[in-house]
Structures are given as C-alpha cells and as structure tokens.
C-alpha cells in the first residue's frame, strides 16, 4: 500500500468532517446500545448474585419466590406479607438450620430503607464472593436507639459517628410521618459492599417496635407520647417480620429444609433458594433481553447501511478528487484502499466514541441506577461477549466500506475528469 494513502484518507475525511462526524456518531450510538445492553445485563446479574452469596434460603410469608427475594433483599417491587414471629422462632429451631437473620422493612430515612434486624446480620450476611460485612467506623448497634448505616447513606448524608437521625414512617422520599420523638444515634458505618446494604439504615428489631409504640392504625395516637427513655420498659418482642435469611449446616440439605418450611402447619410460608429464584428471574426476562439485543443489532445494521449510503452518495461529489488522484498515478486499488480505509476509520472512531459515551453514562447514571434498581454499573474495559460484539461491529464496518471502495475501483479515470453536465 502506498504510505501516503492513510494520510490522504485522513485529510480527505477532514474536508468532509461534518458528514463523516455524523456517521461516527451514528456508529457510536449503535455501539452504546449494543454494548450498553449487554453490559447492563451482565452487571445486573453480577450485582444481584453478589448480594445473596452466603444465604441458603430466604423465608417469608407465602408469596411468589421472585417477589419475596426482590423485596426482602433488594427492596424492589411490591412489599410482601409479613411472617409471624413464632414462625421465625420455629424456623430457627429447625435442626438443619445453622443460623437465621430476621429482616424487618417498612420505614425509611431520607429515601434509604430502614432495616430492623439482629446482631446476627453482621455475623452471617455475605456479599460478593462470600465476603462478610465490615464495620469501617464505630461498632454494631447495642443500645435500643443505636443505628449502623451503610456506606452510601454516610456519603450522601454526610453523617458521622455520634450524629442523631430520625426515621420516617413508610418508604420513599415523600415523608408521611416522622418518628421524630425517638431519634437514633449513628454508632457504626459499614464499609462499602456494592449491594443494597450500602443504602440501608440498620437498627435493632426492638427499635422498630419501639418507634411504633405510640402508633395505632398506621399513625401516631394523638396526645399519646411515650418518651424514648421509657420505651425500654415495654415488651419490644416483634409480632412479625418481613422475611428471614437462613443458613444451613449442610448446604445440600436445602431441598429437604425447603420442603419442610413450605409445609409448615402454623403459617403458610415460602422458602426461596435465592440462586434458583434469580435464575428463574433471568429466564423470565430472557425474552425481553433477546428482543432488546435484536433491536440494537438492527439499529447497528441501519447505521451501517447509512454509512454505505453516505459514502456512496459522496462518491458522486468526489469523482473529481478521485480522478485527480488517479491522474497523478494512483492505481485503482489505491483508490479502493483509500475508501476502505476511510470506512474503517469511521467505524473505529465510532467504536471509541461509543465506549467513551458508555463510560460517561455509567459514571453519570451509576448512582441513579444503583439507588433505583440496585444494579452496580461497573466502569471497565470491554471483555468477553462485549469484545466479540465490538469485533463484529468493526468487521461489519469494514465490509460495508468495501462496497463504495469497489464502486470507486470500477470508475474510469475519464469519468471524473470529464464529468457530464
């Protein structure tokens, strides 16, 4: 190949930068769609799987297993019914059960979920590759109105150890009623986990009971106020909890334990195997995922057809340019290479721009996606399936640019020098 061809191609392209810039943008957007959807898919799977890595069963009131898992662990979707405290105690007594962690949801603090639990949570909860929770600052909750907050709660609100916070009744940002009479003290801040734990305010189960002591029918009883210091004198045993995380002595006993719990006589319960429920969820959304990937592949195809069309249309305008090149000694194959090179350049720039856009989107939207959907968007270089997608895009771009290259190759020298008017 003539060494001047890449330089010529670049300079010629610079002359038509607006048109080609649009083409680069269109290729970039198809890269964003194709790779973005694939990345979202894998990130969602990883995030969800990592948030339940050490739990054998999640037990709650009879409900759809996926719904219970999503609500109890990820706080997504509709709230499930509560299970009775006696059922929880019976569950903890099951000989196959090594440990249980009660979970009680329903209140919030500035949009962050409040989780009522016990100290066992800090012992047994696992995330990622079975990593235990680590308290970055302070200690576990010990007093009734102590709270341990997740890393994101601490960052977003700027709380430090010793700060006093009040919890809100109900979920979300719209505060319906405040538990203002019973403030909590931040005694611990957890290290970041990349799971919903980071966005959670942890208190003891007794504290959840205590803040609702003077409540009836979902609202504070007017005129009745039980001061925080007297709350301890009441029976703070919970009547019900949202769900329980269960660990077994022997992980392979899970089917037998599940069967026993599902057949519990006192209360209709459901024991969910988190790994199985997640796989079922992915099977359910698989069709939607394939549709999305199909649509983005179509978008990519459309942008490459556009690329061919633009370069072909440009050939008309460039007849003179190409003919001049030929007249100064460029062979037809040099012209072919020039056009193919241009197509490749557009595609490569599109891929690079697309990845840059994707990285920017992941950094900008990461926080939103994490808080809203519980999915950690990882900023990273493309790997595995993404890499093969990018290679396919580059190959298609190269193949598409061969079409105008071939047309130019076939053009006669005289064609451009003596254009018909």
């Amino acid at each position: 190949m003539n060494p001047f061809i890449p330089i010529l191609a670049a300079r010629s392209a610079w002359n038509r930068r607006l048109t080609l810039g649009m083409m680069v943008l269109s290729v970039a957007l198809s890269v964003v769609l194709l790779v973005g959807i694939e990345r979202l898919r894998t990130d969602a799977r990883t995030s969800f799987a990592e948030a339940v890595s050490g739990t054998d069963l999640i037990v709650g009131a009879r409900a759809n297993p996926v719904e219970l898992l999503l609500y109890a662990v990820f706080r997504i979707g509709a709230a499930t019914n509560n299970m009775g405290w006696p059922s929880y105690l019976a569950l903890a007594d099951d000989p196959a059960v090594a440990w249980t962690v009660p979970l009680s949801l329903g209140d919030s603090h500035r949009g962050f979920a409040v989780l009522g639990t016990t100290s066992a949570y800090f012992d047994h909860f696992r995330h990622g590759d079975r990593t235990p929770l680590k308290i970055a600052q302070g200690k576990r909750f010990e007093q009734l109105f102590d709270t341990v907050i997740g890393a994101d709660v601490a960052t977003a609100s700027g709380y430090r150890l010793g700060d006093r916070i009040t919890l809100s009744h109900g979920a979300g940002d719209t505060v319906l009623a405040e538990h203002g009479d019973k403030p909590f003290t931040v005694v611990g801040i957890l290290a970041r986990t990349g799971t919903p734990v980071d966005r959670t305010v942890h208190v003891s189960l007794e504290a959840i009971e205590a803040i609702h002591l003077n409540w009836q029918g979902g609202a504070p009883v007017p005129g009745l106020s039980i001061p925080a210091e007297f709350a301890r004198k009441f029976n703070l045993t919970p009547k019900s909890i949202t769900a329980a995380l269960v660990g077994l002595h022997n992980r392979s006993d899970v089917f037998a334990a599940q069967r026993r719990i599902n057949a519990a006589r006192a209360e209709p319960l459901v024991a969910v195997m988190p790994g199985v429920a997640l796989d079922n969820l992915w099977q359910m959304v698989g069709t939607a995922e394939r549709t999305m990937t199909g649509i983005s592949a179509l978008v990519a195809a459309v942008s490459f057809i556009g690329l061919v069309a633009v370069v072909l249309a440009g050939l008309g305008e460039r007849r003179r340019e190409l003919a001049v090149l030929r007249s100064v000694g460029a062979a037809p194959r040099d012209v072919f290479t020039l056009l193919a090179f241009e197509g490749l350049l557009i595609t490569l720039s599109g891929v690079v721009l697309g990845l840059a856009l994707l990285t920017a989107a992941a950094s900008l939207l990461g926080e939103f996606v994490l808080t809203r959907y519980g999915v950690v968007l990882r900023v990273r270089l493309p790997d595995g399936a993404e890499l093969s997608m990018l290679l396919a895009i580059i190959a298609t771009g190269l193949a598409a640019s061969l079409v105008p290259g071939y047309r130019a190759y076939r053009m006669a020298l005289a064609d451009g020098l003596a254009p018909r008017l």
Partner: protein
Amino acid sequence: MHAGKWISASILVALGTQPVAPEALAHQAHVHGLATIQVAVAGDKLAITLNTPLDNLLGFESAPANASQRRAVDAMVARLRRSETVAVPSAGAGCVAGPVRLNAPVLAGTSGHDTPSGNAPPANEEHANMEAAYVFTCARPEALREIEVRLFGELPRLKRIDVQIAGPRGQASQRLTTKNRLVRL
C-alpha cells in the same frame, strides 16, 4: 342446638383439633409434560431427586386396573430403579449409584401384586406423582461437571425438566428440553 350452628361448630372443632396435612397447605405443581429434578452435591455425595407426574411415565395416574397397566407399571419401576437409564454423572468423577428410593403413593403395594393394597390413596385424587431419589458416591467429586439426563428419548410425553441445583458453586436453576439434556454443575 340449631342444626346449622351445630354443623359449623363441629367443623370449627374438626379444624381446630385435626392436624392439617402438609399437602393441604403445599400442593405440588402438577403439569403433564413437565418434571423437576433437584441436584444436591455435598462432599463425595451426589443426590438427584426426580419428581414427575405419573402421566409422563405411564400415560395414566391411577393404580393399575388391568394386566397391561400392571405390566406398564412393572416396566416403569424396573427402569427407574436402574439409575443409568435416568441420570449419568460425568464419567471422570467415578460416581457409583447407591440404592434407589421410589415414592408414588398411588402405586403403593401394586407393583408385582395382583390386588391393590389397602392403603392406596382415595380414588378421587385426580393426579398423582412419582418421586425417584438417587444417591451417588463419587470418587473424584471435583471432576463432577455435568449430569446427562436420559429420560427424554424413552418418555415421549416428557417435554421439559426444570432443574434446581445446590452445590459447592452455589445454587442455580436450569431448564432441560429434548434438545438440551445436560445439567451443568
């Protein structure tokens, strides 16, 4: 006492005193053409439990009523007792099958018997399942990568098997069809 009140009172008493059978609370899903397999791996033990509507195995779901149905039950039972016709673990793992446990209340005491046994479930049950439990002991459990399920070819009524797995690599769920017969561990 008024008759209506007496009846409702006795129902209340009956509900209060009689234990509710677990089945009353947890009815199994029963879909013809669909079976479930649970795979548990712990140490050198591999446990495989197949649960399927009897229809998938026999084409009927009652105690055998005639000689040909009895032959069908005997053939099916003999087949299920040979683990190699049901599930075959990776050859490299060196798994040896232990005793097979079959559990189908509707067939209680019938296999190889001319008269149905007295403890058969009530005749008004519309559906019946077969549970077959297999336990293997594996010499090299680390080489246990997959299990080939050999039920589809010989059971034309069986269309899909939902597999649940609990093993050293965590929990998972897979779906087997006539085209995809391998459980990947």
